[in-house]
């Protein structure tokens, strides 16, 4: 099982699901209407490291974070 957490302004409770890679998570979130506005502009981190490809493998206990557009300062 992996946990998905939604950061900042994404008003959504964490999800826990089975996933072997980020491809599986992309598939689930594509069908989630709450996520429609975020899918195209979120960065993705696995265990707090940003990743650049859906081929990133996942293992049991991993944490996936979705980071929407930022504006610090």
């Amino acid at each position: 099982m992996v946990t998905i957490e939604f950061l900042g302004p994404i008003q959504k409770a964490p999800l826990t699901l089975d996933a072997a890679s980020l491809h599986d998570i992309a598939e689930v979130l594509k069908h989630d209407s709450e996520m429609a506005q975020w899918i195209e502009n979120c960065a993705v981190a696995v265990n707090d490291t940003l990743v650049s490809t859906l081929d990133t493998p996942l293992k049991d206990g991993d944490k996936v974070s979705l980071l929407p557009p930022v504006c610090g300062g």
Partner: protein
Amino acid sequence: MSTLELYEGALNVPEIITRWYAEESQYNYGAYIPFIGTVREEDGIEGLSFDVYEPILSSWFDAWQTKTEVLGAKLKMAHSRGDVLVHESSYIAAVFSPKRRVALETIEKFVEDFKASAPIWKYDLKNGARLYAADRSTAIAGAGILGGKR
């Protein structure tokens, strides 16, 4: 290695910028440049509010610190969480460097990358609501892979 400070609410700017100056006074730096960001009164806001995701902010900051140390320089940073009212300050980034050129170039690059990359989300405080500042926000480099971008 980190000298990253997070505070609830507005920053105490005099305390922070004078303490940092004192902390580094014996390390033979020739240039110290703090950048202080203050909440502007505009569009009728009462203030801004911030969410900070500390684990990724820390690793982003540490990567910058490592790059900066190679140049003989050092970074410090402070940021607010939660509400900061107009004319209060929410952000300080600072560089210490032996020489001015490295200091001037580093503060500019650091502040610009901060705006583009630091995992911090900004909200307008307006009429009692807390509204995500979507129009001023920037997608992090590499964003969109879940939608098929790579």
